[in-house]
């Protein structure tokens, strides 16, 4: 069971198999909580968000499509949406967000940890992470910063524009070009 693929565990979790559920939650909880914490900046809220994300993943399991992407990406996408739903309702959000540190914290953490040879990851997972990290690194700085801000840090386009001190249109362009370029880089690395 501990060696089961992400997809197999997820299928077991979705159908309410307690053993598969336990292993599935253990496998992903640090990533889900990590993302929730990065976006919410509040451990108590992050705990709730992470729980909600797992519950939502289980509830909408039928909508997962293995042909479109990985379980991890899908689950983290849900986590991000739940976290954003929470923080965008929070009027104190701006006070809590230190926009000046936007950009590098999560990225550095992620890239430094994940691309290290010492990380004992499964080869497949390590490859997937390394591919994303390298592809992201290859982007122009401002595009990378914009993408990290609106994904891993949960900023809106407008918040990113304000934090970066650029017009809204520029922020939109950075996001648009950045995501497309990232796709291109990922395709190159996948070959």
């Amino acid at each position, binding site marked *: 069971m501990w060696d089961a693929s992400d*997809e*197999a565990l997820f299928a077991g979790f979705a159908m*309410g198999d307690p053993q598969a559920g336990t292993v599935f939650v253990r496998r992903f909880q640090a990533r889900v909580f990590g993302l929730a914490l990065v976006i919410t900046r509040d451990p108590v809220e992050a705990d709730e968000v992470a729980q909600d994300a797992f519950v939502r993943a289980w509830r909408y399991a039928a909508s997962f499509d293995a042909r479109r992407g990985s379980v991890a990406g899908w689950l983290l996408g849900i986590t991000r949406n739940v976290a954003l739903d929470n923080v965008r309702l929070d009027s104190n959000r701006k006070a809590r967000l230190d926009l000046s540190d936007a950009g590098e914290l999560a990225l550095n953490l992620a890239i430094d940890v994940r691309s290290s040879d010492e990380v004992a990851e499964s080869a497949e997972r390590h490859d997937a992470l390394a591919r994303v990290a390298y592809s992201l690194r290859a982007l122009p700085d401002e595009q990378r910063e914009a993408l990290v801000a609106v994904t891993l840090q949960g900023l809106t386009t407008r918040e990113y524009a304000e934090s970066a001190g650029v017009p809204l249109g520029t922020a939109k362009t950075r996001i648009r070009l950045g995501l497309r370029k990232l796709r291109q880089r990922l395709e190159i690395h996948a070959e």
Partner: protein
Amino acid sequence: MNADGCTWVDEVAAELALGLLSGAERAEALAHMERCGRCQDEVSSLTGVAEQLLLLAPEIPPPAGFESRVLARIDPVPEALRPSGSSGTGRSGVTRTRNGRRRPPWRSVLGAVAAVLVVLVGAAGVWVAFADDDNHSQVAVTVADLRSNHNGDVVGQATVRHSSPPVVELEMKEWIDALKAQGEWPVGDWLIEVQDGAGGSAHYPVRLAESPAKVTLVEPQPGSDRLDMTNLTTVAVRDGTGHTWCTAKLNA
């Protein structure tokens, strides 16, 4: 498709994929995408990229007891598998129970037998599971949509337990009842036609009055081919005149 709509969606596709659009813009983009496959594909592709980006989220262990709190909130029947007013769309590997709830197909198949672990969720409308059988040995189970040969609608489900011999179960009572109510269901003998990957086909009598209708693949009708039971590809339901009413592709 409208070229202006495409140009605009193309501009906002990345923000849509990243969940950054406002409600009104999002609704407008989605409305366009309903009519435009190209924009739909583009946004879907970018959504996949956005999800990959999230793989870089830092790993931070949650507070103690997190796992138990999550598992305590999980009910055995996911809401997504409950009736939502529509049926047979998309990944339809679910069936309805008597009380109207939907449940994963392997549960209806296996009854009291415990499904251990689904190892593969395959292409649209086909699920493959491994389950403990009564003798506690592992048996693969394929569950596939039965689709009407008339219009392609999902009308029920075919389940194949790959035991020796294999067992086919058909759940299509609601469809049969609906056709009966319209006077379109012929009276007479029914058959299932089972095909294998080598093009062989065999016919077995089936009693559709039962639900699920269960057929153990022994004693085919005369004239049937000898099937490769390890590589069954389709199950079709035919009436006594040879007309095929619905078909399940086991390897769709």
